[in-house]
């Protein structure tokens, strides 16, 4: 009898393991399928594959960089709604410094420093005022957007409807152009992803953050301080935002009040598309941002290609994306509706 029970228990564990692997691979499989469909559409229409692939990287890179850093915050079960505003503010200060110095290194360092400072401010103020981090980020969203907007408006050189600060000097544009390549962007992403994976998977930081996200009361009772790991999470997110802001400047060579305005929501969608629960905790994965970010952008591009001759296609794209988002959350939530805590 005991052996039968053991055998049944062993089978259940095996089934659970297989199930977990399938769940883990589903987002990657979805990305592969989306990519295959995308390439098929391009080839079927005799479109330019190289340009389209470059477009995907250009559109996804900032989102993926920001989302990768933000995984640390989402793991804690919190989220930062000021990511877009922080990207805008960092890019604004960064482009001013670059216009003044012409130094790429200073551009990147400034963007990272400003973004980390904004992130730390979020974290520290929420500790000081004993406010939930999410509430603090709502306030920061407003503050950073206003400051960046004021700086941009007073330094604007744009002939468009929206004020913008541009890099207008041709020598400086050449400097930015020299790093506005797919390989450079992929290299930046790869380096950052490696650092994040190391911190998240091979140090106690990731383990404890998952614990805090999964069961904050229990984690607190075992002596894991939320404030310390909250600060680490916001610092990592700040680095992602800074890198995203700098890469955005090298790509667009300008910053306007509309820059990165949709990043906050896109990060949220990307992480869900990547198969990570929005509640954080044990199932958090760094790769969710990369897989989800690219899936989201490829999906948008597929829909744009398919609906290219339809008036009001951007509305349809948004609606279809929203429906898919809900479907994914629903399918994912089926898996979370278990009687036991995730192991």
């Amino acid at each position, binding site marked *: 009898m005991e052996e039968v029970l053991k055998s049944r228990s062993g089978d259940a564990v095996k089934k659970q393991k297989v199930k977990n692997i399938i769940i883990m691979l589903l987002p990657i499989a979805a990305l592969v399928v989306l990519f295959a469909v995308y390439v098929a559409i391009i080839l079927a229409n005799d479109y330019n594959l190289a340009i389209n692939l470059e477009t995907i990287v250009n559109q996804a890179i900032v989102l993926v960089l920001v989302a990768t850093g933000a995984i640390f915050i989402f793991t804690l079960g919190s989220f930062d709604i000021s990511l877009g505003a922080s990207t805008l503010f960092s890019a604004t200060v960064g482009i001013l410094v670059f216009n003044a110095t012409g130094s790429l290194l200073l551009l990147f360092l400034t963007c990272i420093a400003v973004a980390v400072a904004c992130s730390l401010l979020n974290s520290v103020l929420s500790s000081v005022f004993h406010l939930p981090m999410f509430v603090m980020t709502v306030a920061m969203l407003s503050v950073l957007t206003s400051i960046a907007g004021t700086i941009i408006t007073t330094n604007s*050189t744009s002939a468009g409807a929206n004020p913008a600060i541009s890099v207008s000097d041709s020598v400086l544009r050449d400097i930015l152009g020299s790093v506005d390549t797919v390989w450079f962007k992929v290299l930046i992403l790869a380096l950052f992803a490696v650092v994040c994976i190391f911190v998240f998977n091979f140090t106690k930081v990731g383990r404890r953050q998952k614990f805090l996200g999964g069961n904050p009361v229990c984690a607190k009772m075992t002596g894991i301080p939320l404030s310390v790991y909250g600060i680490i999470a916001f610092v990592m997110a700040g680095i992602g935002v800074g890198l995203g802001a700098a890469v955005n400047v090298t790509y*667009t*060579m*300008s910053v306007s009040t509309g820059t990165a305005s949709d990043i906050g929501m896109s990060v949220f969608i990307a992480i869900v598309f990547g198969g990570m629960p929005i509640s954080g905790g044990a199932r958090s994965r760094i790769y969710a941002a990369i897989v989800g970010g690219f899936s989201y952008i490829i999906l948008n591009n597929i829909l744009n290609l398919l609906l290219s001759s339809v008036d009001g296609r951007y509305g349809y794209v948004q609606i279809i994306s929203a429906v898919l988002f809900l479907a994914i959350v629903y399918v994912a939530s089926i898996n979370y509706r278990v009687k036991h805590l995730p192991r």
Partner: protein
Amino acid sequence: MKHLGKKLVACACALALTGSMAALAACGGNGENDEVRIGVLVSDVSGEEAVSFRNYYTQYIAEQYNVTFTYTEQLNDSASEIAAIEQFAGQNYDAIISLSANDRASQAEACEEAGMYYAIASGMDDTIYETYKNNEYFVGQIGPSMSTEYEAGLAMGEYYADKIEDSVAIYGAFIPNPMHVYRMAGLLTGLGATYGGATGEAIVGAIFADSGVTASKISLEGKTVSYLAGFGDSTMTEMGTIIATDPDALLSVGMATTFFSAMLNEAGIPYADIDSFTTSNAANMQSGTLEYLAGKYTSSIGPIFAAVYNAVQGNKIENADGSAISISQDYWVATSYEQFEVFQTSDSVTDPIYNKELLDTVIGEDVTYEAFEAFVTTDRTPQA
């Protein structure tokens, strides 16, 4: 098991979606081989002028020529402009016509990189034109030049110079937007005002140096000047305060008819603006207090289409020195409803001034720059 069933249903839905996408893709195609495909960058998708421009291209030009126009969504920044250009390039579009001015330099560079012809259907900053005029894929720009913008402001200022007795309100729109800066410099000059001691075109440099207009620097002898610019949360309140001082007129370098028409009509304050000949402006002039309007007309974007079409067909029209074209278009000015009505009826989507018959005179293999320039600069202002 129940959960597995739901997952299977979800997977089936996803597969069905994928399948239908592939089917759609297979049914799709790249259009006819000789069809010209033009992407249009726009930052305004709902304004009356923007809609009339769009209708002229998609309902008139597309019907007359073997050409397809694909419009972008509302482009709010440089990143969205570049992304749109890359998407058009990826779909083998032949050319881009830009009505979006967030970052013209980046647009030109992105089109050059993608090997697509690029043209601007409005004025552009001289510095940017000089930088990109020898770009192989830059067709050029046709629209009010900065000099024309200055002249437009000057004409408005001169028209009101004798009408202002005690006070004038000035709306600076989105200064330091170069177009608005040039108009403002012209307006102040026409009124006989100085800015920080600067006069004439020197005012342009002074405004750029200040990154905006400092109200206290405007000096108009014996008259009070109120100044407002931009549009934010408090703009309507600030305009209300200015209106309460009962100025002789409000002179605007742009956007006043969009933002303040209702307030000004209600208060009975005469106003002037540089905008376009739209239905709402007709109503403002007929039954409101709009008394001076310098504006563009629907088919004014016809010539730039002709230039792009020629370039795609292998005849890129260039200046004598081989650089891209840069031809200025003047504004039409209406100071009465009767005049406005003539302008409106003379140019429409179904019966435009730049109709096929006229455009055909500059579309072809043998069209020269001289002929094209004469075509664009010919005064076609309708007469009452």
